[in-house]
């Protein structure tokens, strides 16, 4: 458990240090994600890596536990809404309508594109 958490934190740490040292506009945790993914893929090729957090479902179960409660992690930032109540009272309805319409349009545009593109590309694969 602790070893698995350490591995996750270590990936993030390397990611954060890396993006700052190279000044690239990528979030550090996203680089950490890629590092952990590479480690898991490397384990398939080199079974010697399957020890500690990378063996015995260690980092897998720690990650699943964290992702099962992903909603919890947004609450502290979300409560920040209380600081903006005056602004929401002034422009609140407009902002809510704008965000709601935008989110619906975005959901529909993305899913329609995904479905259309995936049927297009799979059809291309089938034609000899």
């Amino acid at each position, binding site marked *: 458990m602790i070893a698995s958490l350490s591995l996750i*934190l270590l*990936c*993030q740490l390397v*990611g954060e240090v890396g993006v700052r040292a190279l000044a690239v506009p990528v*979030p550090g*945790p*996203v680089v*950490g*994600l890629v590092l*952990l*993914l590479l480690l*898991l*893929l490397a384990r398939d090729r080199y079974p010697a890596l399957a020890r500690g957090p990378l063996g015995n479902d260690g*980092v*897998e179960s*720690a*990650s*699943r536990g*964290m*992702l*099962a*409660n*992903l*909603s*919890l*992690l*947004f*609450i*502290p*930032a*979300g*409560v*920040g*809404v*209380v*600081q*903006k109540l005056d602004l*929401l009272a002034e422009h609140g309805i*407009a*902002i*809510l*309508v*704008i*965000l*709601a*319409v*935008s989110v*619906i*349009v*975005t*959901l529909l*545009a*993305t*899913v329609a*594109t*995904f*479905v259309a*593109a*995936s049927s297009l*590309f799979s059809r291309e694969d089938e034609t000899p």
Partner: protein
Amino acid sequence: MSDNPFSLWVYLSQSPLLWLTVTLLTYAVTDAVSLKTRRHPLANPVLHSLWIIGLFLLLTGTSYTTYFAGAQFVHFLLGPATVALAVPLYENRKRVAAAVLPMLVALAVGSLTAIVSVVLLARAFGLPREIILSLAPKSVTAGVAMGISESLHADPSLTAVSVILTGIMGAIIVTPLMNFTGITDFRGRGFAAGIAAHGIGTARAFQVDEVAGVFAGIAMSLNALVTSLLVPLAVTYLLR
């Protein structure tokens, strides 16, 4: 018992213990309700935790800064949780590799739609320029969105609020909307949730279907990259 309940309150309200307990307890209750209602969209645990904790802070006259000093330990885990997305991604790698092209096309269309739609709508509503700039990056995860907002000299705290509101609305609406369209491809449904509603949409997607959650996580990560490049471009063209 302390002879002075006020001094006890002063101690408690300044220590992380109280605010961590309030955050975890409220989430435990709202998440249990969400499970009981078989993950009904309107029983969204983030939405209900926010108003319960917000009301508690208002009633006790506690500032958000004091609350966050305690709750930041939960907030911190957002970074490690992003790293943890590598695990479901690894477990579903064959499915993901087979869908790389549709994902890239949907990423381009979805990311652009998210930014352009909010800027055009906000302009049509006649909102002040500073508010429009603050709303523009609302579909990416809070940390990245606030960075974009700062670089545009907008209001990062308003951006954070619009990010959270977008995430909650997306998480509530995605399941009924997708059921209405009749689309049953959970890869596409999850991907759309991640593009439109970042981490809160991803959390919702994991509640519904693991494959949807994986695709939402990828969409959220990719969108964070694309949006930070697109927003400055889009506002230069759309807000001249």
